C-alpha cells in the first residue's frame, strides 16, 4: 500500500504554483518529501480505490474528488465529476465534507470512466481514460490547499478489470 504525506504549508505553496501554471504541475514535485503529517491519501490494492486519513485537526474538505493524469511530465486535472461519497446514494451531496481528526474516508471506487465513474448512472459521451498514470487530489473546502495522492496506473480498457465491480 503506497502512502504519501505532505504538510499543509507545502500543499498551499504547491496549490498556488499549480494555479499559476494554469492547472498544471510538474511531475517532478518533491513527492518524497516527508513532513508533518496532516491528510494522508493512500491507494488501495485495486486501481481507482482510495483511502483518506486525517492525521491532523478536523478539516473541511471540498466534496469534489479530483483526478489528475500525467501528460508527458505535467500533471493535468481531468475534468471528470467525482465526489467524496462513500456509497452511491443518488442524493445531492453537500458541497463540503468535514473529516474529523483520526477519521478515514474511502470514496466510492473510480472505474476509470469520464462519466459516472463512481456510480451506475446514465451516460451518452463516455471515455475510458486509460492507459496512463493518475493520482487523486483532495482540496480544502475553500480550494486553497490541495493534498496529492500517490501515482497509480490504469491499463488500457481491454485489460482493465476496473469496471467489473
Amino acid at each position, binding site marked *: 500500500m503506497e502512502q504519501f504525506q505532505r504538510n499543509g504549508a507545502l500543499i498551499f505553496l504547491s496549490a498556488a504554483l499549480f494555479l499559476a501554471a494554469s492547472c498544471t504541475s510538474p511531475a517532478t514535485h518533491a513527492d518524497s518529501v516527508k513532513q508533518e503529517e496532516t491528510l494522508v491519501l493512500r491507494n488501495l490494492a485495486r486501481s481507482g480505490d482510495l483511502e483518506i486519513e486525517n492525521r491532523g485537526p478536523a478539516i473541511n474538505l471540498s466534496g469534489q474528488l479530483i483526478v489528475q*493524469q500525467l*501528460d508527458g511530465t505535467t500533471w*493535468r486535472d*481531468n*475534468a*471528470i*465529476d467525482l465526489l467524496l461519497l462513500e*456509497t*452511491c446514494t*443518488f442524493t445531492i451531496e453537500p458541497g463540503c465534507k468535514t473529516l474529523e481528526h483520526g477519521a478515514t474516508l474511502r470514496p466510492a471506487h473510480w472505474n476509470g*470512466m*469520464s*462519466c*459516472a465513474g463512481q*456510480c*451506475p*448512472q*446514465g*451516460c*451518452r*459521451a*463516455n*471515455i*475510458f*481514460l486509460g492507459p*496512463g498514470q493518475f493520482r487523486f487530489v483532495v482540496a480544502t473546502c475553500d480550494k486553497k490547499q490541495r493534498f496529492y495522492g500517490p501515482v497509480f496506473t490504469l491499463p488500457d*480498457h481491454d485489460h482493465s478489470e476496473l*469496471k467489473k*465491480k
Partner: protein
Amino acid sequence: MAVTVSLNPADFALHVMRAPTVAAPAVRGNQMFFDSTPMRLEGFATLQGGVGEAALDWKVGFIQAQWVETNWCSYRGAANTDGSIFIQRGRPPARTQGACRDCVDGSPMASVFYSTNPLHREVAQGAAGDRFPLVLRVNHTDQPTDSCPLTIRNTLTGKDNFLQEAQFEFFFCTTLSVQDPAGQFTHLLGVYWNTRWHYSFSQPGNRAQVNPQGTGATIGHPFRVGAIDPRFAPVFTSPGQVQSCNAIFRAAMAAFQPGARNRHETRTWSNFNVTVP
C-alpha cells in the same frame, strides 16, 4: 498555395476498430444498470500546403450527434392494490430536446468536437514546423450506459413498486471532420451506430428477460458525408447548442420526482402508453 484539406479518397479514412455491444442488465446497488462495451473508431485526414506555410489551428477530430433517445422504466407493486408507476425520461418536458450534440463532460460545447481535452486524444492539431502533406490521426471511443432504480415508492398507495420493464435506445452519428482556422468544418466520413436494451423483470430477485427484437447494438459502414442528416443538422455544429447530451439526459432525471409530469402513478396495476410524455 493555401493550406487545404485533401479530398482525395486515399488521403482520409475512418475505420471501425470495435463495434459496440450491449451487456445484459445487472443490479448495482439500488439500480438496474444497462452497460455497453466501448465502440472504437480510428481515422485520419491529410492537409496539403506549400513551403513556408503552417497548419496551425487546423484541427481533425470527431463530432457526434445523438438523434434518437428512447428512455422509459415502468414499475409495479407486489399486489394489484400496490399500484404502478411509469417514468418517461425520453420525452418532453423531462427531456427538453430530441437530437443533441454529444460532447464529453468538461469539453466545451462551443468547441463542437466530441472532446478537445488533450488527454483524450480525440483531436489532432497542426503545429509549427509541420511538413506537407500533413497526416493527422485521431481515435474515438464511446460507451453509453443508463440505469433505473430498482424500487420506487408509489405516493398514491404508499407501497414500493418494483422495476417491471425498461427500454433504452440511443442512436448516434459520428463524423471524422476537419476544422479550419476560421472555424469552418469539412465533414469527411461518418458512421451511424446505436445501442438498445428492452428488458422485463420479475420478482423476486429482479430476474431479467430480454426482448431480443429490442436489444442489441449495431454500427454501419463508414460513408462519405454529403449534407448533414437533417434529423440532427440543427445541433451538429451550431454554437447555439449549449447543452451536451449528457447534460440533457441528467436534466431529464427530474422525471423521477413525485409530481413530475413525466412520472405517472396509479392505485392499481396498469399498462401505460409509452409514447406519451
